């Protein structure tokens, strides 16, 4: 934390990414993500409470509340107790600080599952996992003191800070990439009564890797291609859309892989893949004439090649630096800085309605969640979820634990066709997929 005030409470500035979230967030745009851990035993509320309390002593950057300054929000130390509740609501709902002792994360549990919902201003998915993993370790150590010697693990010093790594690493000279084309927006009715559907496709990670190898693609590339294919089949084609806008997939990038940083604050950027349906359709039509027939596999291979190419072009340090620097420069702009917070809120919320039209879907893959030694024996798998929004009605996320890669669709769209196309595609490739959901939408594994 940056400074100390008279009441001895500490505070810190929001990092460059975090600044935007409290300004734009609301009940409809919660900007909340969730990480869940499925244990092999029922959760004990009291032990969980103790574990969270202890984890907060180690990761004090999470023990904060949001305060409004004149120009920006900032984080201040929070000395209240954390509230632990049984899960009742839909996942990734807006975290109302007033109902949560001012904390920016919420811990809930249900049967064997522990959830952490995190407001994105606090941190990103990568650091969220670090904090959540600590809670799980502490929980298991408190539950099974005979199995785990917690001192062994706790003696290891954790090395982190809360610096704004954007400011440290951005380049003033780098020029940003401007995308001017609006994206294809998923069509269909929204689910009534404010409900959010969560569908988890639990994929056999080894089989998936084997399949990816066949195409010389990474797991993220392959699943991105399956996602675009599913959107095309399950939404664009099914609803006979005539939109000429491209399917744009936003893929968050963990900047810690590219720049040195030990921050627990946000440090991510993103890249956007724009798959142009119109052109692809034209190509397909041409080929139809040429070959008389084109099957779904050919179409998928085309999409996958496009995705691989985009990754190759956009996932370079230079390109990432461009995107990151453009965002930092915007936040650093003296004019923007000098606008009072209340006015900023109005301007940002108005512009956000427009900005959100530039993405069809987001897919965030946080990768493998590493768990040490015997702790693994008590865990089934992890889940990652991102809050859907009125424009971006479906958001996708993925994480892997041991041999289980869980691909999650969180949706407010009253139609599970995309999820079903995704499931059927993997099944056709003989990849084992198991479905878990909150049953807001029908079970896709049981449908014809």
């Amino acid at each position, binding site marked *: 934390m940056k400074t100390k005030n008279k009441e001895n409470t500490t505070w810190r500035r929001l990092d460059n990414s975090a600044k935007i979230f409290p300004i734009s967030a609301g*009940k*409809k745009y919660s900007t909340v993500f969730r990480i*869940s851990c*499925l244990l092999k035993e029922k959760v004990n509320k009291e032990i969980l409470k103790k574990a969270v309390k202890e984890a907060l002593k180690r990761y004090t950057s999470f023990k904060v509340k949001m305060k409004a300054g004149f120009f920006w929000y900032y984080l201040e130390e929070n000395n209240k107790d954390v509230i632990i509740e*049984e*899960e*009742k609501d*839909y*996942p990734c*709902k*807006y975290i*109302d600080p007033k109902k949560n002792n001012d904390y920016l994360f919420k811990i809930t549990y*249900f*049967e*064997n*599952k522990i959830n952490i919902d995190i407001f994105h201003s606090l941190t990103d998915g990568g650091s969220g996992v670090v904090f959540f993993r600590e809670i799980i370790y502490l929980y298991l150590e408190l539950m099974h003191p005979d199995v785990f010697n917690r001192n062994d693990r706790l003696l290891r010093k954790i090395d982190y800070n809360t610096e704004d790594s954007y400011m440290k690493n951005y380049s003033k000279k780098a020029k940003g990439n401007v995308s001017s084309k609006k994206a294809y927006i998923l069509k269909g009715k929204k*689910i*009534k*009564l*404010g*409900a959010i*559907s*969560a569908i*988890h496709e639990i994929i056999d990670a080894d089989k998936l890797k084997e399949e990816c190898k066949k195409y010389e693609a990474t797991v993220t590339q392959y699943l991105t291609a399956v996602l675009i294919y599913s959107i095309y089949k399950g939404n664009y084609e099914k609803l006979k859309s005539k939109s000429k806008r491209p399917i744009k997939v936003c893929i968050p990038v963990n900047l810690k892989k590219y720049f040195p940083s030990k921050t627990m604050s946000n440090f991510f950027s993103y890249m956007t893949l724009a798959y142009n349906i119109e052109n692809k359709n034209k190509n397909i039509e041409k080929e139809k004439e040429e070959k008389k027939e084109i099957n779904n596999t050919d179409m998928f291979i085309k999409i996958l090649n496009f995705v691989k190419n985009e990754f190759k072009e956009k996932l370079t340090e230079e390109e990432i630096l461009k995107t990151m620097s453009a965002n930092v420069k915007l936040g650093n702009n003296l004019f923007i800085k000098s606008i009072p917070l209340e006015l900023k809120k109005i301007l940002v919320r108005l512009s956000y309605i427009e900005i959100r039209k530039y993405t069809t879907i987001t897919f965030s893959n946080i990768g493998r969640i590493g768990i040490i030694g015997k702790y693994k024996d008590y865990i089934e798998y992890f889940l990652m979820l991102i809050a859907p929004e009125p424009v971006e009605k479906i958001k996708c996320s993925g994480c892997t634990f041991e041999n289980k890669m869980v691909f999650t669709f969180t949706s407010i769209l*009253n139609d599970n066709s995309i999820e079903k196309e995704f499931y059927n595609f993997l099944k056709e490739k003989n990849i084992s997929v198991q479905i*878990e*959901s*909150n*049953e*807001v*939408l*029908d079970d896709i594994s049981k449908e014809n």
Partner: protein
Amino acid sequence: MIYPKKINASHSEIIVRLLLILSLLVGILLTIINKITSPNIPWAAFTNCGIIYVWLVTIYSINKNVNIAGYVLLQTILISLLTVYIDYRIGFKGWSLSISIPIIIMVANLAMLILTIISYKKYLRYAIYQLIILLFSILPAILITEKIVTNPILGIIATGISLLNLIITLILSSKDLKEAVVRKFHM
């Protein structure tokens, strides 16, 4: 099962449609009763406005994620007080007691009834507000028995709807209602 049970999207679609039809039927029924019993006083127009008002409040509350029951209770009390005050200021003819308050109570009970049916699984958070609204709903009956109101028809309908609300609540959520009372009033 890794999530608490939630209403399926196709069910919620049906529920919303059924409630719309129910609202329409209640509106038509009250208009017919109005025409038959007291055609000189167009109170059905107010009840129908109330039904529309309930829908607006419900949509707002769902979007804003606020406790609808608390919202309904607050509005019931405030609007009741406001109408009594207006009646008093313009010479107290008693319309606030014989028309406004029964209509407000009717609408509040209908709103709570809808809420109970839709979300009886998380009823606990609404129970105390529901109980207060039910207690407040005794008012028209008291006004009628004490002969304070001259035209009791709306008071009778309001009491009937309150009783119906009470019965359905007891059938669906008596356990939660009991738990809420024990929790709030423990010594």
